[in-house]
């Protein structure tokens, strides 16, 4: 029981200290996560079930109308939340794992390791990420695992740079020298001495990068190289329904709004975390 009470009360005090903007952000993010997790229960129809004709008006049966194939748009949005958020989250986690590990290693080992890793990253950074991922995906195919790995690799270059610069200031501290002189292995030093001190800016960056990855996946889907139909995802829903705009139908704007709301929500939370971790006190 105690194991449950502690995090709940910790969240409670965090919630109370949060400004209004952050509370709005938290509500939006949790709402989407909840919808994504329980998509199967909440959604009125199946993910690919055709329930009516093309681009129907909003009605009691289809609350947000239907899409270009006559599927229920609300259902698609709900399943889209699950697919898009899940993939974006997995990609970001993997990207951070790669980026933090290599960034810390570059800082802790220095010398040639640092040079090698940093120059590889420089090369990758010199090519725009959207073009590079389009190229890789058209060569490697567009299955979900490939999508996640390619995007994580490319995105990790940004994480690498942050992790390296943050840990550069940490590896010169005497406590890291103490650990080295004790004979600790590199992995232990990275995990126990460096990571806890670098975690604050990294968490803030995590929120931001999650947004970028999420938008990138939407953009790729819009261009046809992201998630493949009939899987629902917000980016491709905008693309598939784009034609409706010329008939004055608002359908494509609804998934676009969903993307916007999640991005804004995450950013509100991240802004708050950045403020909290930057160590700046409110001026009196």
């Amino acid at each position: 029981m105690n194991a449950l009470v502690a995090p709940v009360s910790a969240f409670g005090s965090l919630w109370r200290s949060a400004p209004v903007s952050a509370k709005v952000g938290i509500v939006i993010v949790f709402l989407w996560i909840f919808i994504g997790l329980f998509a199967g229960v909440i959604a009125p129809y199946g993910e690919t079930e055709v329930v009516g004709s093309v681009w129907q008006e909003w009605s009691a049966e289809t609350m947000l109308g239907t899409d270009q194939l006559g599927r229920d748009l609300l259902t698609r949005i709900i399943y889209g939340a699950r697919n898009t958020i899940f993939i974006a989250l997995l990609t970001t986690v993997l990207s951070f794992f790669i980026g933090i590990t290599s960034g810390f290693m570059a800082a802790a080992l220095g010398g040639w390791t640092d040079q090698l890793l940093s120059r590889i990253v420089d090369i990758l950074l010199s090519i725009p990420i959207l073009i590079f991922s389009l190229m890789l995906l058209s060569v490697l195919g567009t299955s979900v695992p490939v999508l996640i790995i390619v995007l994580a690799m490319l995105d990790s270059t940004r994480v690498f740079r942050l992790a390296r610069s943050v840990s550069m200031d940490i590896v010169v501290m005497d406590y890291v020298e103490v650990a080295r002189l004790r004979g600790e292995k590199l992995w232990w030093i990275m995990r126990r001495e460096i990571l806890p001190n670098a975690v604050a800016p990294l968490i803030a960056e995590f929120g931001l990068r999650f947004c970028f990855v999420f938008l990138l996946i939407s953009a790729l889907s819009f261009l046809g190289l992201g998630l493949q139909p009939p899987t629902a995802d917000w980016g491709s829903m905008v693309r598939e329904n784009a034609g409706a705009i010329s008939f004055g139908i608002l359908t494509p704007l609804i998934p676009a709004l969903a993307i916007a709301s999640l991005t804004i929500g995450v950013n509100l939370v991240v802004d708050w975390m950045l403020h909290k971790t930057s160590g700046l006190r409110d001026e009196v």
Partner: protein
Amino acid sequence: MKSDGTNSNARTGETILDMRNVCIEGYGEDGWKTIVEPISFQLKRGEVLGLIGESGAGKSTLGLSAMGFSRGGCRISEGEIFFDGMDLRKASETQLRDLRGARIAYVAQSAAASFNPAYRLLDQFVEAPVLHGVSNARDASQSAVRLYGEMNLPEPETIGFRYPHQVSGGQLQRAMIAMAMSCKPDLIIFDEPTTALDVTTQIQVLIAIRKAIEAANAAAIYVTHDLAVVAQMADRIMVLRHGRLVEEGEARSLLAAPKQEYTRQLLNVRTERKEPAQVDREKDMVLRVRGISARYGKGVRVLENVSVDVARGETVAVVGESGSGKSTLARVITGLLPPYEGEVAFQGEELAGSFAERSKQDLRQLQMIYQMPDVALNPRQRISEILGRPLRFYLGMNQASCRERIDELLREVELPESYAERFPYELSGGEKQRICIARALAAEPRLIICDEVTSALDQLVSEDILKLLNRLQKTLGLSYLFITHDLATVKAVADRIVVMLQGCVVEQGEKDEMLRPPHHEYTELLLSSVPEMDPDWLDRVTADRAASGRLG
């Protein structure tokens, strides 16, 4: 000023600063809290007031308030501050700006942090006089050269064209004093101007400060934690503690007959003396350093043929100014900097040059304690984790015996066992250093290298740390290699003394022998530069050195 005669100026004796019931508050988690309780004092032209106390006593805050300034998160909540008849608390920001830098000057503790690294010294000197309309750039440059000369800076004509990183710390501090003098201020506030300096440099800066105050016929507030330094500078001394005035009096009478217990404690600091260790220097040698030379990269040699021995149960102190290579010696012994020549033997066996090639047992038996306990402890680890890791790593202890040993270690360094669950930031500086000592002890070492372990601490606190180290040595039979620039520390702990200069050992021997004349020329300079409580000390040393022609 102390030396009479020079201040025959008619205006001497006129009250320049009058602080009445000044009270300062600081903002904390539970709102505004008083950090300096109502305090009043007056300052006459030509008079020097010494503010003394430990860190957190409020002495710097009070010093800054004399120019109507309070740091961020602080405010002057009550009282009046009259500067030459003008109430600074009622003055507008513009009026204050006109005063500061022109009529009230401030000399900060760390010149290196106060100079803008992107501008030449001269440009920074000229800025204030030109901005305040005191003189034009050309005249200001000329007065800079004159002041640099008065401050005994080398090449006063050209030193202004250097950048802050191109001159030494002591020179930079003197350049800052020259800068404070640029507008001929009526009041100068010195905030620990020599605390970050070596003794040999400190004495030059002290002489420069004296000259400056004398020349400007200004009033001065001298903030420091070192009673011996303030004894040289001040006419009047105020002792502060926890934002409260403890004692106030004329410098000489206060030093001769302190009324309060706390002042007596401050005066009696640096009296700790170690019982000489009984060691067998033939048989029981823990560390043997032979003919070590080291260099950084392929460039300059920083150590040249250094040999040092440490026997079981004894303390060897390595002294020298900053840049003398004493910390580099520690880096070579610990294996952070493999030597270029020579060998390090530990308990009779030669050690690998780099720590990465040494065995766990070798690493365990040679521990190190650092200068800054703040950066030597991981701020995100609890004390139990900091102390527990060496126990598990070296000795393979399990959870229960680890717990027990941590409590034991905390008792050993005289801290309560409840500290195990705290984070480093919940401890004071002295307590943090005790944790560092406990961490070194956890490894059950033979030799501990102490790198300036007390120089970041207040005097009373560092005295306790030295006592603790001496007691631990006696009970555990430890050996210490004590690196320091402070000769008072050396007197307190050392059995043997090694004097280093520019990467070479100048002289070494038993403590008593080393402290007795005749000395090597450099040892003599070091020894004579340590300030004494005697208010006439600086005058005497200046006279002595002038006689032997070795000043500057």
